[in-house]
């Protein structure tokens, strides 16, 4: 074993330290009194800084050196957590480029977001609780990243979901926030069922949940043999498991049918949106697919990869169309996030592991930047989120404006910025794989450029439209500086809020150069997956994406830039052109309404049905018997057509009632009945065990 490998081994055994510091910070903060605000923030940021340093050390160690050019620098550390009977439950930590890169990104972006949050939350009285949750989130996210065991990963996955739930509903007294937190939790839970089934299947067939181990019997190391076994729905076993895992990733990464929770999650504080719903947690699904990539590609004949690609593609385009017609500054970004996650998934499905992960990293930087920027805007405009009531902020908030511009250009895919290179990679990968998907993705890229331009002009361009009253419009628009209402005027935010923007925008500018083929080969590809062949470059893709991006920006300028909005009450210029379609887009293709009409309504109907059945039971046997007798006596008393019909109706009711009663007698609230059923069940189980 070379020195380098030994060094990696040592570092892998210390990977647990990365999530450890935020975890300790969270534990301490949970005990702090509410008044310990400064201490709480300091703890959180310090812990994150420690994690960041450790992650940087791990990252440094995984950089390719000297002789190890063609193999992935991977080290892992497994240990037995506990054993029951002969089965040992192993946990483990891994150190490889995927983990190191992701961990560094999470810790670094998280660090700056925490710094920003100290400003954003400065006026909140539950400051300590907020930072406690943030620390816990950071710990579980980092734990997810360094896990070398699917169970550990799943535990952190759920913890991350829990933190997301807690943070979305941080202002739980707002009904919308309370609804959003529930929606997020339940929607992601739908995906997690798939994930869990996948885990169970994997355990059933490989007997381990450790991803890599020294004996070569880890779950991922057996992916090849799983690819040879038949699974369900015409897939190989590996493909089936991969599909199940992907369902989990769909929930977490807000892919098409399960995307509904992410825009609503914007009810949470903006740093939360930046950290959880843009940079890290939603990327966990993409990361997980990347981590389990061996299963997805185990059998080349499986359609699971196409499924991933198409889901990603649909999400990318679908969300981009919605983002065009939103007015809430954070919602635009939320749908944009959905769309970008779709891009990543699409890249993974097209076989572009590197492209997907690269976009994950660059996107984390510039989307966190955009979200933090929007947070600054919201604070600067005194909690205004509607873009129609902004405008002209360029003058009031210059630093925010320039940083936001960098983020916007990166997201829109303008050449020197980070987003250009990573999106380009994805488009190239898709181009080689499936032309139709490529066309759709290019369309989505066009929309991306368009809606970001729209947002820029609405927020920063034109004049300040805040403080207006929609209908009356009696406050003038053009003379804000003369206005006595200093309170309503936007202002630049404090240094602890804009400093993270500056730092992140530096990355948003330069980070893309790591993954370009034009600069000493594709460095990132070489780092992450040296064993995979680098994709061929296709000039048409690059040219077209530049053209499309430019076209989107141009169109945006034409519609929104040339003649800025004057009044907040003015209709969106696009609405006139698109007509009814705009409304449809604004209402998000009515997906929520569709869910409301189908799933929610059906569940409620089922609940009502059960309640009705219960009602019948409350009446109890006595009432039922009395009713029957009453019916019978009626029958004997008046023998006539009308009464016979009545009686028949009653009898019909009674039979329904009787059926319901029979079922519901089981739940009579008496402990002893339950105990009785339990004992009988136990007897039956044991009897089956003995006499089968």
């Amino acid at each position: 074993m070379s020195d380098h490998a030994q060094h990696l081994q040592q570092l892998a055994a210390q990977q647990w330290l990365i999530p450890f510091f935020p975890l300790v910070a969270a534990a301490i903060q949970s005990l702090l009194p509410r008044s310990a605000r400064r201490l709480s923030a300091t703890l959180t940021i310090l812990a994150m800084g420690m994690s960041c340093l450790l992650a940087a050390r791990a990252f440094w160690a995984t950089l390719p050196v000297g002789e190890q050019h063609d193999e992935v620098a991977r080290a892992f550390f497994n240990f037995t957590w506990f054993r029951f009977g002969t089965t040992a439950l192993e946990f483990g930590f891994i150190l490889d480029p995927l983990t190191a890169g992701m961990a560094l990104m999470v810790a670094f972006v998280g660090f700056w977001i925490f710094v920003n949050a100290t400003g954003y939350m400065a006026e909140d009285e539950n400051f300590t609780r907020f930072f406690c949750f943030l620390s816990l989130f950071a710990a579980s996210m980092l734990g997810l990243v360094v896990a070398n065991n699917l169970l550990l990963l799943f535990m952190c996955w759920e913890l991350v979901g829990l933190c997301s739930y807690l943070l979305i509903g941080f202002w739980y007294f707002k009904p919308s926030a309370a609804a959003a937190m529930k929606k997020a939790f339940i929607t992601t839970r739908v995906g997690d069922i798939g994930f869990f089934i996948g885990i169970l299947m994997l355990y059933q067939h490989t007997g381990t949940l450790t991803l890599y181990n020294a004996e070569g019997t880890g779950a991922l190391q057996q992916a090849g043999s799983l690819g040879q076994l038949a699974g369900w729905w015409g897939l190989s076993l590996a493909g089936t498991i991969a599909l199940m895992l992907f369902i989990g990733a769909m929930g977490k990464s807000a892919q098409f049918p399960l995307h509904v929770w992410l825009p609503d999650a914007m009810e949470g504080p903006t740093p939360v949106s930046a950290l959880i719903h843009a940079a890290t947690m939603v990327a966990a699904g993409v990361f997980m697919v990347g981590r389990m990539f061996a299963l997805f590609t185990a059998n080349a004949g499986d359609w699971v990869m196409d499924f991933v690609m198409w889901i990603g593609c649909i999400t990318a385009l679908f969300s981009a169309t919605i983002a065009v017609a939103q007015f809430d500054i954070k919602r635009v970004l939320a749908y944009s996030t959905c769309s970008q996650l779709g891009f990543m998934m699409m890249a993974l499905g097209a076989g572009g592991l590197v492209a997907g992960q690269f976009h994950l990293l660059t996107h984390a930087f510039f989307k966190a930047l955009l979200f933090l920027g929007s947070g600054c805007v919201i604070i600067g405009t005194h909690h205004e989120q509607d873009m129609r009531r902004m405008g002209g902020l360029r003058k009031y908030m210059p630093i925010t404006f320039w940083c936001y511009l960098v983020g916007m250009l990166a997201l829109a895919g303008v050449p020197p910025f980070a987003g250009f290179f990573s999106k380009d990679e994805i488009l190239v990968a898709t181009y080689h794989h499936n032309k139709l998907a490529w066309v759709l993705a290019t369309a989505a890229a066009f929309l991306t450029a368009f809606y970001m331009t729209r947002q820029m002009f609405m927020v920063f361009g034109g004049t300040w439209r805040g403080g207006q009253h929609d209908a009356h419009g009696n406050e003038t628009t053009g003379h804000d500086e003369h206005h006595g209402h200093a309170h309503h005027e936007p202002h630049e935010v404090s240094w602890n809020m804009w400093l993270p923007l500056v730092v992140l925008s530096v990355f948003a500018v330069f980070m893309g150069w790591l993954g370009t083929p034009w600069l000493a080969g594709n460095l990132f590809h070489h780092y992450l997956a040296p064993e995979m062949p680098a994709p061929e470059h296709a000039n048409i893709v690059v040219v077209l994406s530049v053209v499309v991006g430019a076209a989107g920006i141009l169109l945006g300028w034409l519609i929104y830039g040339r003649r800025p909005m004057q009044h907040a009450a003015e209709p969106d210029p696009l609405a006139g052109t698109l007509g009814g379609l705009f409304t449809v887009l604004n209402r998000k293709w009515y997906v929520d309404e569709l869910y409301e009409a189908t799933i929610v309504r059906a569940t409620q109907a089922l609940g009502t049905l059960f309640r009705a059945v219960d009602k019948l039971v409350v009446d109890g046997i006595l009432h039922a018997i009395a009713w029957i007798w009453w019916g019978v006596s009626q029958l004997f008393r008046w023998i006539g057509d009308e009464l016979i019909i009545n009686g028949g109706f009653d009898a019909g009711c009674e039979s329904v009632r009787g059926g319901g009663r029979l079922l519901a007698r089981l739940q009579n609230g008496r402990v002893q009945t339950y105990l009785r059923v339990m004992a009988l069940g136990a007897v039956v189980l044991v009897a089956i065990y003995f006499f089968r």
Partner: protein
Amino acid sequence: MTLTLGHYLGMSAILFAIGLAGALTRRNAINVLMSIEIMFNAGILNLIAAWHFRYFESLTPQLFAVFAVTIAAAESALGLALVIAVYRHYRSVNVEEMTALRG
């Protein structure tokens, strides 16, 4: 006839069944709790019998029994507190009348 582990297991099985019968048929919550204590004791007796006959070189069965006794004690304290609270509320300790959780 030598004494075997089976004697103890069988006896505690019968004790368990007696306790179960009590828990199923008695109407007074305190009686039910007493029946549960009987079941608990039957279980703990199994641990000690297993130690005596099979695992006498190991401390684990006894430690397990220590923990089981502790849990049983905590359970009975809580259970009786609940009974008293329920009695204050309903003026009754009849388990058949405690049907607030009825469906």
